């Protein structure tokens, strides 16, 4: 297609030919294409991250809400895409949205709970200061602990358990030494232990 004088003078980023999109493209390249309206690039990112996002949500949200929260995350990604700046890694940006949407889910749930006159024990899974640890099952206890620990602790645990990355791969992804990653991992597991408290695992 012939470009106008102005297009040649001022090349715009949406002059990318969709056939140039390749499965080997980095997340950041696909995100750039998607920002410029290329649906195929967004689908590429969606297919790349659906399983990881779904399992991250599953590790932190009650099973009956996993699908809704996952859907809300990808809708938020579409809406926030114009704001993505390539200074950040795409997965860091995406997992920030995951954390934000999960926090939003618990905020809404908490507000809803405030309107509920009576609560069953199951409805009191998270965030209640007086619940009895012993009465909660292992899944709930681990989910609660994962939600309570700092982001960088949670991230390293999920990278190992859900993304299936080796400690060396985690170190490379985070630009840290292997020793630093192993140390962080142990502190993260210790933090989970502290959060879980007296629950019989």
């Amino acid at each position, binding site marked *: 297609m012939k470009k106008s004088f102005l297009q040649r003078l*001022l090349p*715009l*980023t*949406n002059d990318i030919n969709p056939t140039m999109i390749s499965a080997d493209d980095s997340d950041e390249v696909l995100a750039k294409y998607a*920002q*410029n*309206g290329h*649906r195929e690039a*967004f689908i590429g990112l*969606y297919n790349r991250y*659906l*399983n*990881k996002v*779904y*399992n991250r949500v*599953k*590790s932190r949200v009650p099973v009956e809400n996993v*699908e809704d929260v*996952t*859907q809300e995350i*990808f*809708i938020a990604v*579409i*809406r926030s*895409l*114009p704001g993505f700046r390539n200074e950040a890694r795409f997965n860091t940006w995406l997992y920030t949205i995951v954390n934000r949407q999960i926090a939003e889910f618990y905020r809404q749930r908490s507000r809803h709970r405030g309107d509920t006159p009576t609560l069953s024990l199951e409805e009191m899974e998270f965030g209640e200061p007086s619940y009895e640890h012993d009465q909660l099952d*292992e*899944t709930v*206890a*681990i*989910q609660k602990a*994962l939600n309570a620990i700092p982001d960088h602790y949670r991230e390293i*645990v*999920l990278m*190992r*358990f*859900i993304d*299936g990355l*080796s*400690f060396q791969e985690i170190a490379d992804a985070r630009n840290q030494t292997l*020793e630093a990653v*192993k*140390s962080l*991992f*142990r502190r993260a*597991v*210790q933090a*989970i*232990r502290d959060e*879980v408290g007296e629950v019989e*695992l």
Partner: protein
Amino acid sequence: MEHENQLNDQLADYTDAMLKGDAMLLDDDLQELGTVLRSLQRVVGKPTPPPTPFHTRLTQTLNNEWQKAQQERAQARQRQQLVWRLGTVAAVVVLVFTVLILLPSDNTTSNTGTAQGGNEWLIFVLVAVILGAIGTAYYWFQKYRR
């Protein structure tokens, strides 16, 4: 410090072995953390793909959402372009009026020749500056609107 590093290495090795399905003994200091790791494996250590009906439904929902978002962005762009065009027209009108005001009037006498020459030069510079400003503004507008 050395002992801490050994514990870090041992816990990492234990995690690797556990996720591979191999057995490994842990130092007494790490027994509690080993329990947490086994629990983590049971709860989050077996990632599964989302159920097919959900995947299909989600893909459809996101397709619709994508279309909607693109339409909204296109409308926003059109609004911005309209504002820009109106601004450009206003700038051109101002430019024309400025030129008309600065042009020498018909009753100029011959002994003002030097002054007229000065005015023409000034008008040329003014037009060039305004056109340059419009061009620069247009360039930055195109570059940063996305």
